[in-house]
C-alpha cells in the first residue's frame, strides 16, 4: 500500500526534532501544531532540504533516506513538489517560464499534469505573461502550486501556503486547493497552524508539539479528542464530507447527504447541486433520545447506536454514537446519561440542532 513512512531525528541549535510519521498514500495529511513545533523542519526533512543525521524515509515504496545504510537521495532527484510559504517564484522569469521550468525537468512521475491542465486548474490563463513582482499574493501562490504540480510529483508538500495571504486571497485560493484534493491521486503533506484550514482540507492529521508527534489519526478523530489542545471544550465535534443533493427553495433549505444520513440546513444558498462540501457537527449541538422524537422543531434526526461513553463520571460526559458510517459526538448531562441508561450498543436517535458549513 502506498504511503509516506518517515522517521527523523535532528537537532537544530536548541531545538530537537524526533518524529515517527506514517501517512496514508492518498489524500491530504495535515501536519498541525503551534509555531516552533517543528512542522516546517519536518517537511523539509521529507523533502531532503534538511539532512537529518538519523532518518528513514520511504515514499510509495521508494526509499529516499536511510541513515543506517548511508542512503540519502538528494532533493532534486526526489519526485516531489514543494509549495513554499512565500511561493518563491523565480523573479527573473515570467509565470509561463516559471511553469516551464518545472515541466522541463521531470519526465514521467506518478501524476503527470500537462501545462494546460495546470493552468486551467489554477486559473492562471490571464497572468501567464506577467512577472512575479506584478502578481497578487493569491496569484503567486496559485502559480507556486501549479509549478509544483508540473514536475510530475509522487508527493506534494505544502508549507503553510496560505499563511502569507490576506482573508480575501485565502477565500479565493481555497476552492483551488479543495479541487486539488479531490482530483489528485497522490498524497499531500500540508503544514498548517490554522484549525480552519486543517478541518477544511485534511483527511489525516499529525499533531506536532515541541518536535514530537503528540497524536496522529483521521481528521475526525483528532479534532474531537478531548485531551488534545486542538479544540476547546465547546468545539468538540465531528467533520464529515457531504454532498448537496437537493434544495427547497420555498423554505430556503439545502439538503446534504453524508455517510450516516441526510441533513437539511437553512443555509448554503450559493451551493450547487452535486457540490461537495465539508460540514461540522458540534457535540453541543447534538442531543439524544431513546425513542424517535415526535413533533419536534429539529429537522435533522438520525438513527444511531451508542459506541462509547467518555468521561462518564464528569458532569457533562460525551457520548459517541455511530450513525452507520460516521461517529457523532453528543454532549449531555450525567443525569441524562444515567436516566436514559445509555450504554454501548444501545439504539438512540441523534438530534442535530446545528450544522456548520466549512468554511
Amino acid at each position, binding site marked *: 500500500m502506498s504511503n509516506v513512512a518517515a522517521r527523523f531525528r535532528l537537532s537544530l541549535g536548541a531545538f530537537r526534532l524526533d518524529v515517527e510519521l506514517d501517512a496514508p498514500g492518498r489524500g491530504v495529511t495535515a501536519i498541525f501544531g503551534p509555531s516552533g513545533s517543528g512542522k516546517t523542519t519536518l517537511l523539509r526533512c521529507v523533502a531532503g532540504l534538511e539532512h537529518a543525521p538519523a532518518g528513514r524515509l520511504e515514499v510509495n515504496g521508494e526509499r529516499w533516506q536511510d541513515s543506517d545504510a548511508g542512503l540519502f537521495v*538528494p532533493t532534486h532527484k526526489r519526485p516531489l513538489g514543494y509549495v513554499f510559504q512565500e511561493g518563491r517564484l*523565480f523573479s*527573473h522569469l515570467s509565470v509561463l517560464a516559471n511553469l516551464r521550468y518545472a515541466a522541463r525537468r521531470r519526465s514521467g512521475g506518478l501524476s503527470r499534469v500537462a501545462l494546460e491542465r495546470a493552468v486551467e486548474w489554477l486559473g492562471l490563463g490571464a497572468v501567464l505573461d506577467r512577472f512575479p513582482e506584478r502578481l497578487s499574493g493569491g496569484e503567486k501562490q496559485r502559480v507556486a502550486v501549479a509549478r509544483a504540480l508540473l*514536475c510530475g510529483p509522487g508527493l506534494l508538500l505544502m508549507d503553510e501556503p496560505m499563511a502569507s495571504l490576506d482573508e480575501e486571497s485565502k477565500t479565493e485560493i481555497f476552492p483551488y486547493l479543495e479541487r486539488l484534493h479531490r482530483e489528485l491521486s497522490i498524497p499531500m503533506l500540508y503544514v498548517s497552524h490554522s484549525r480552519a484550514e486543517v478541518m477544511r482540507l485534511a483527511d489525516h492529521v499529525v499533531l506536532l508539539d515541541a518536535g514530537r508527534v503528540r497524536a496522529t489519526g483521521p481528521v475526525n478523530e483528532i479534532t474531537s479528542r478531548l485531551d488534545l489542545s486542538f479544540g476547546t471544550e465547546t468545539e468538540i465535534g465531528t467533520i464529515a464530507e457531504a454532498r448537496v443533493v437537493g434544495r427547497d427553495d420555498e423554505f430556503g433549505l439545502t439538503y446534504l447527504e453524508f455517510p450516516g444520513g441526510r441533513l437539511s440546513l437553512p443555509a448554503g444558498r450559493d451551493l450547487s447541486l452535486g457540490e461537495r462540501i465539508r460540514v461540522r457537527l458540534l457535540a453541543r449541538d447534538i442531543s439524544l433520545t431513546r425513542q424517535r422524537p415526535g413533533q419536534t422543531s429539529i429537522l435533522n434526526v438520525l438513527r444511531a447506536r451508542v459506541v462509547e461513553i467518555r468521561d462518564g463520571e464528569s458532569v457533562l460526559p460525551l457520548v459517541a454514537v455511530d450513525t452507520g458510517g460516521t461517529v457523532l459526538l453528543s454532549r449531555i448531562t450525567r443525569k441524562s446519561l444515567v436516566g436514559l441508561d445509555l450504554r454501548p450498543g444501545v439504539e438512540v436517535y441523534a438530534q442535530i440542532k446545528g450544522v456548520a458549513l466549512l468554511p
Partner: protein
Amino acid sequence: MNGLEMTPLLLSLQLAAVTTLVLLLLGTPLAWWLARARSWVKAPIEALVAMPLVLPPTVLGFYLLVALGPQGPVGSVWRAAGGGALVFSFSGLVIGSVIYSLPFVVQPLQAAFETVGRDPLEAAETLGAGPIDRFFTVAVPLARRGFLTAATLGFAHTLGEFGVVLMIGGNIPGKTRVVSIAIYDHVESLSYAEAHVLSAVLLLFSFGVLLTVYIANRRVTRIRLS
C-alpha cells in the same frame, strides 16, 4: 598623433580585457563558494581575497618579481614546464593584474550571490534542478547585476594599474609599456604635451565605457518594471 603613441592604450585595453575575462572565470566559482560556505576557512580566505586592496602595489609587484622570476616558486615551475619568461611579458602582467584586481571582481560577485540567497535555489532544487543546473538557470540570472559590476570594476581597475606593472613589466614598448607607464614616463621626462594627450584619451575612454555600462544597467531594470 603617430601610431606609436596609441600602442600603450591598446596594450592597456588588451590587458584589462584579458584580466577581466580570467577573473570572471576564476572569480565566479570562488565567489560562489564564499557566498555559501560556512566553515571556518571562509574568513581567512575572504581576508586573503581582500589583501590586494590594502597592499601597496609596489609590495605586490616586488614579491611577484621574485616569485615569477627564474628562481621563484612560480617561475621555476613555469620554465620547467616549457613556458617562457613571465616577468617582462604580457602573461606576467596578466598574472599580476589578476591578483591585483581580484577583490574588485570577487567581492561584488560574492555580494550578488549572497543576495540571491538560499530560497530560490531550494525552490529550484525541489523542481528537479541539480547543482550545476540551478547555478546557471537561477543563481547566475538573479546575480546578473553583480556580474556587470564585477566586470566593470575589474576592467576599469586594471586599466588604471600602475604599481604592479611598473615592478614587473620592464617598460617594453609594444609588450609591457601600458598607458599608465607611458604617461608617467612623459611626465618624468618633462614631455607634458604627450602626457596630456594620452591622459585625456584614457580619461575619455574610461568615462565612456563606464557611462555605457551604467546606462545599459538602468535600461535593463526599466524594461522589467514596465
